[in-house]
C-alpha cells in the first residue's frame, strides 16, 4: 500500500535518513523499531508531509506521489496519531473531529455530526462519546478520539507514534485489539515503538532503523528479542541488569498519612504511607498524572504538605523548605532535565555550581575549584561536553542526565528522588544511568525511582509501589509479581501489601 524507496534526508550536520526503504501492505500492522535518533520520526514526518525528502520516492497504491504538506498527506489517506495529542481540550470530541475538515458547512449541525462520529466509532469498536469535552476524558479515551479523527478523514494508512507510552498494560492490549480490527478491515497500520515485547506480541512485520539507516525488515513470527536488540543496537546487549542482593539499613524516608494538593487545588496525594530504607530502590509505577510528580515534589520540599508527616532519618521535616531538604541529604533529579534540573543557558560549570554554591563560605566563587570539580564529574561519568563553557542546552539528553545525576551524586545524598530518569535516552546512556543508580543503592543511599516503564521498574526496584488517583494501591515485591498484576493496580485495583 505504501512504499518509501531510498529516502534520504539531511539536516545541517546530520544525515537523518540514509537511503531508507520501507513498505507496508494493507491489512498489516508494521512496527518501526529503533532507538532515539535512529531516524524513525524523520521518516514518518516525511510520510506525513511535514518534511520533504532530499532523495527518494514515495509510492501509494503503486503510484508515485509528491507530499508537499500535511494536507497532501491527508488527501492521500495518511493519518498520524502523535505522541502528544493534537486536541483542543475545551472542545467536544465531535468539534475536534470537524476542526479543519473540508466539506463542513459554515453553519454546521453538531447533532448530525455527533451521529456520524458515533456510527464510525461503533464500526471500529472504539468506544467514545462524541459530545463529551476532551478535558473530561482519560488519556486512553483521548487517544481513541485521535484515532476516530483520523478515520473520519478517510485515512487508509494510520501511523501511531509510541501509542502505548501513556497507557496501562490493559489499555495497551485493547488498543492493539482495535488496531488488529482496523487492519482486518483493510487499513495499513504503522506503529513507531521502542518496546520490544509489545512489538513482538502484536505486529506482523518489523523494520529496524539504526543511525538513520534501515537495518532490515523481519516477519514478527520469525524473529526473537535477541535478534531485534542486536539489530537495534548493533551489538549484543545485556538485557538483564546484574544486581547485588539488597542490603537494607535504617529507614531514610518516612511518609505518614501524607496528603497534598495538585496544581488545580484538588487532592493529588491522599493518605500516602511509604517508607524507604537506605540501600534499596523503591519504584513508583502508575500511569502519568496519578500523583507521581506531586509525590516527587513533596519529598523534595517543593510542594506544601496539607496533612500528614514527612521524616528523613527520623527528623520531622514536614514543613522543611527545599534548602532544608537538600541539607538533610535529599537529592532531586526532576523529569525535565532542562528546566527544573539544569539551567539551559548556563554552562556545565555554572550548572554544577548551582547545587554547591553554599560550599563557598566567603560568598565569592572560586572558579578554579569549580572547574576542577566539574572536570572530575565530566571525566568520571564520561559526559561528552565539547566545551564546559558552552550553554548546557546544546548537550544531548543522555549527557544532560549524566551531568545532572553526577552533580547530585557528588553530594553523597541520603535519598535520591528521580523521575523518568531514562526517558528519551539511548541504550548506552540508559545502561550508565542504571548502573549509577545501582551503585548509589549499594553505597547505602535510598532511591525513589518514578517511572512509566514497567520493564525498567521491574529490573531496578527492590520494592514497587503503585500509584492510582493519588493513592498507593499497594507495595509489591517485583520478583514475586507479574506485569498483569501491576497493570491492574495501575488501573485502580487494590492489592494486599507484601514485600
Amino acid at each position, binding site marked *: 500500500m505504501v512504499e518509501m524507496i531510498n529516502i534520504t534526508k539531511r539536516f545541517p550536520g546530520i544525515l537523518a535518513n540514509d537511503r531508507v526503504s520501507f513498505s507496508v501492505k494493507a491489512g498489516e500492522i508494521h512496527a518501526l523499531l529503533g532507538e532515539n535518533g535512529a531516524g524513525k520520526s524523520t521518516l514518518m514526518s516525511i510520510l506525513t508531509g511535514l518534511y520533504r525528502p532530499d532523495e527518494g520516492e514515495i509510492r501509494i497504491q503503486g503510484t508515485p506521489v509528491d507530499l508537499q504538506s500535511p494536507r497532501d498527506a*491527508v488527501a492521500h489517506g495518511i493519518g498520524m496519531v502523535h505522541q502528544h495529542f*493534537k486536541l*483542543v*481540550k475545551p*472542545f467536544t470530541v465531535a468539534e475536534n473531529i470537524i*476542526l479543519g475538515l473540508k466539506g463542513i458547512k*459554515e*453553519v*454546521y449541525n453538531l447533532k448530525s455530526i455527533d451521529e456520524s462520529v458515533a456510527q464510525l466509532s461503533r464500526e471500529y469498536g472504539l468506544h467514545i462519546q462524541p459530545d463529551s469535552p476532551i478535558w473530561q476524558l482519560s488519556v486512553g479515551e483521548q487517544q481513541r478520539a485521535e484515532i476516530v479523527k483520523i478515520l473520519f478523514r478517510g485515512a487508509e494508512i494510520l501511523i501511531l507514534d509510541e501509542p502505548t507510552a501513556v497507557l496501562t498494560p490493559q489499555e495497551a492490549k485493547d488498543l492493539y485489539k482495535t488496531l488488529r480490527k482496523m487492519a482486518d478491515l483493510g487499513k495499513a497500520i504503522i506503529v513507531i515503538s521502542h518496546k520490544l515485547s509489545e512489538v513482538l506480541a502484536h505486529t506482523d512485520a518489523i523494520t529496524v532503523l539504526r543511525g538513520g539507516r534501515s537495518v532490515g525488515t523481519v516477519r514478527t513470527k520469525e524473529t526473537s528479542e535477541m535478534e531485534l536488540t542486536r539489530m537495534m543496537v548493533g551489538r549484543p546487549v545485556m538485557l538483564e541488569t546484574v544486581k547485588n542482593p539488597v542490603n537494607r539499613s535504617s529507614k531514610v524516608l518516612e511518609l505518614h498519612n501524607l496528603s497534598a494538593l495538585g496544581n488545580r487545588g484538588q487532592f493529588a496525594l491522599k493518605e500516602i504511607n511509604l517508607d524507604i530504607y537506605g540501600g534499596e530502590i523503591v519504584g513508583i509505577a502508575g500511569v502519568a498524572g496519578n500523583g507521581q510528580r506531586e509525590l516527587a515534589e513533596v519529598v523534595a520540599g517543593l510542594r506544601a504538605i496539607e496533612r500528614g508527616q514527612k521524616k528523613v532519618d527520623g527528623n520531622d521535616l514536614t514543613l522543611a523548605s527545599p534548602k532544608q531538604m537538600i541539607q538533610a541529604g535529599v537529592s532531586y533529579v526532576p523529569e525535565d532535565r532542562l528546566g527544573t534540573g539544569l539551567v539551559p543557558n548556563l554552562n556545565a560549570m555554572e550548572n554544577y555550581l548551582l547545587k554547591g554554591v553554599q560550599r563557598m563560605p566567603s560568598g565569592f566563587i572560586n572558579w578554579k575549584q569549580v572547574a576542577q570539580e566539574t572536570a572530575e564529574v565530566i571525566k568520571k561519568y564520561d559526559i561528552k561536553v565539547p566545551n564546559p563553557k558552552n550553554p548546557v542546552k546544546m548537550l544531548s539528553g543522555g549527557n544532560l542526565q549524566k551531568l545532572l545525576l553526577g552533580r547530585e551524586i557528588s553530594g553523597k545524598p541520603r535519598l535520591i528522588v528521580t523521575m523518568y530518569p531514562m526517558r528519551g535516552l539511548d541504550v548506552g546512556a540508559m545502561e550508565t544511568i542504571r548502573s549509577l543508580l545501582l551503585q548509589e543503592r549499594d553505597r547505602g543511599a535510598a532511591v525513589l525511582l518514578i517511572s512509566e516503564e514497567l520493564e525498567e521498574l521491574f529490573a531496578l526496584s527492590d520494592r514497587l509501589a503503585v500509584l492510582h488517583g493519588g493513592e498507593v494501591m499497594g507495595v509489591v515485591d517485583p520478583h514475586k509479581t507479574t506485569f498483569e498484576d501491576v497493570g491492574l493496580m495501575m488501573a485502580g485495583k487494590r492489592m494486599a501489601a507484601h514485600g
Partner: protein
Amino acid sequence: MEQSIWLALLSTGVVAGTPILFAALGEILTERAGILNLGVEGMMLVGAVTGFMVTMSTHNQWMGLLMAIVAGGLMALIHAFLSITLRANQVVSGLALTIFGTGLSGFLGKDLIGVPLTDTFKPIPIAGLSEIPWIGDILFKHDALVYISYGLIFILWFFLYRTKTGLELRAVGENPAAADAAGINVFAIRYACVIAGGMLAGAAGAYLSLAYAPSWLENMTAGRGWIAVALVIFGTWNPLRAFLGSFFFGTIDVMGFTMQTIGIQIPSFFLKMLPYIFTIAVLIVVTRETKTRRVASPEALSIPYNREER
C-alpha cells in the same frame, strides 16, 4: 418622579456603556484567538480623534465612523505585526500601543479641543419597540450606533459558537499547535482577529467623540479602554455577558450625575472613582473564580505561536 429618575439613569447607562461594549467585543475577538491587546485605550483615542476630524471636514458622521474604524484597524496592525510575526511580549507591545495612541491623538487633536460639532449621531427612537414601558425607554430611544452594538453582540456570539470559522478561531486561541496540525492558518486568523478587534476599538472611540460627548478632549477615553479589557474577563470571553457588564459599568459611570440631580451629597471625585474601584473589585472576584472553577481564559492567550517549538 422617582420612576423617571431611575429610567433616566438606566437609559444613560446604556449609552455610557456603549463605547465600552464596542471595545470589549473587539477585545473578546482578539483574545479568543489567543492574542492579548492592552492597546485598547490607545486605539480608542486614535479612533475618537480620527472620527472627529473626518466628520468635521466631510460633515458626514458615518464617514467619520468609517475612518475611525480604519484608524483603529491600522493601530491594531502594529500590535499584530509585533506580537504575531515578531513574537514580541504582548503585554509590552500593547502598553506601548496605548502610550503611542495617547500621544498621537493628543498631537492630532490639539487644535480641535472645544470645537463644536454639528453632524453627530442623534437618538432615533424605534417605532413600536420604544413604546414598551421601561424596556422601550431604557433600550430603544438611542442613536443608531447603540442599535448596531446590540446587533453585534448576537452576531459575534453566533459567529464564535455556531460557525465553522468561529470554531477554528477558538481552536487557535486554545491550542494553536492542534489547529495548525488540522490545516488551519493560525497566523491569518490571529491577524484577522487582532485587526477586527482594533476596528471595533476605533468605533468605540468614534462613539465617544461623535455621539456620547460629542466633542474632542485630550485623553477623553478616561480609562474606558482599560475597563473594556477588565470587562472581557468579567464576561468570561462571552459577548452576551459582556453586554451585561458594559451596561453595569455605564450605569455606575453616570450614577454621579443622577445622585447630584436628586440632591445626594457625595464628593464628586469619589463618584468618578467608582467605575475603577468596581473594575478592581471585579478582577479580584473573577480571578478567584477562574482559579477554582473551569471558566478559564483561552489557554494559549498571550503565548506567541512558533511552529518550530512544538
